[in-house]
């Protein structure tokens, strides 16, 4: 069964985008991250509500961002390490 994910509570996704790159303010750590368009799309999808890995992969592909399930899983793990997203038990 695919893991379900959500934004970490408190993350506002304060950001600025230029030329396909995005700087994102992490409300929990105070860090600023440089993220790509695909990671931002994932975060925006989770901002709308929790979703599982399969649905997030479909969402990215429908947005024209080529991503197989393994890439989506890796991206989510990276975002989890930054305390931007967390798995929902």
């Amino acid at each position, binding site marked *: 069964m695919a893991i379900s994910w959500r934004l970490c509570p408190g993350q*506002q996704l*304060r950001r*600025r*985008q*230029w*030329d396909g*790159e*995005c*700087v994102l*303010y992490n*409300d929990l750590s*105070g860090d*600023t991250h*440089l993220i790509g368009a695909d990671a931002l799309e994932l975060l925006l999808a989770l901002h709308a509500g929790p979703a599982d890995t399969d649905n997030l992969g479909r969402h990215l592909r429908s947005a024209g961002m080529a991503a197989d399930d393994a890439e989506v899983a890796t991206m989510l793990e990276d975002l989890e390490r930054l305390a931007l997203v967390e798995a929902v038990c």
Partner: protein
Amino acid sequence: MLTVAQLPAGQLAARLAGAGLTLQTGAFVTRLQSTIPSVVRGVALMYADYPLGPDDGYADFHLRMVRPLNWRRWLRPQVQLLADGLAPFKPLPLAQAYPMFEWGLNWCISSRAHSYLMLHAAVVEKHGRAAILPAPPGSGKSTLCAALVHHGWRLLSDELTMVRLEDGLIAPMPRPISLKNGSIELMRAALPTALFSPPVHDTNKGTVAHLRAPADSIVRLDEAARPAWIVFPRYEAGAAVELQPVAKARAHLRTAENAFNYSVLAARGFDAMAALIEQSDCYDFRYSSLADGIATFERLAAPP
């Protein structure tokens, strides 16, 4: 408004020895007390054109430069900086008293003035538009800044870029330009009529000297400037001059690395930095001659 140079003879030393000399350096008023001769001479030389602070006694920063009364005073005399009565640093050799005043004032501002986003960057202005030069020590930032402000640019600061949180404008804080090691003789040769403080040797930064800020920059202490460019300078001996655009998202991160209080300001710091980057063209600038530097900045400022 009365300037330091307009004080009657003997008044500068008397104020420094007494209740203190109040200096208006941009948005801040500093009260300085000291009887150390090199500090008195340094202030007379470097701050001649600065207006005195208000007569009501208000000052943002209270600095005292004193000689510690320890056994060392007989063998190796020292100087101690007191900021609001506290000693934030260990004493230094007495010969370093004047630079210690400059470093101490930088420390006071960079550790307390959190109504600004503060960058470790030189900043100069022309036609109302400011060029910010964030860079680590050794990049030639102050040397390039010194050359620019003697070739048509206004000095806003050689060390601390103060971005006002309320409107994103840069508040001027022109102070003596700190030069190190080889750049001292380089600038003496390039600017034969400019005034320099006596070189002080064997500091943590090597040999240091200060270059007096141009008088017209001090007259315009109250004129804030709109940011237009962020230029990351890098001096490289023998290199061909090169100005390369930097992607804005990356410029945001690199400029944040050169900020004193980006993290302290948290989300407000992020917003201020993003607004700064939004309205600035960002470049990496490599150069090996000041003439190339001056010419490149002239082209940047030229009307489109």
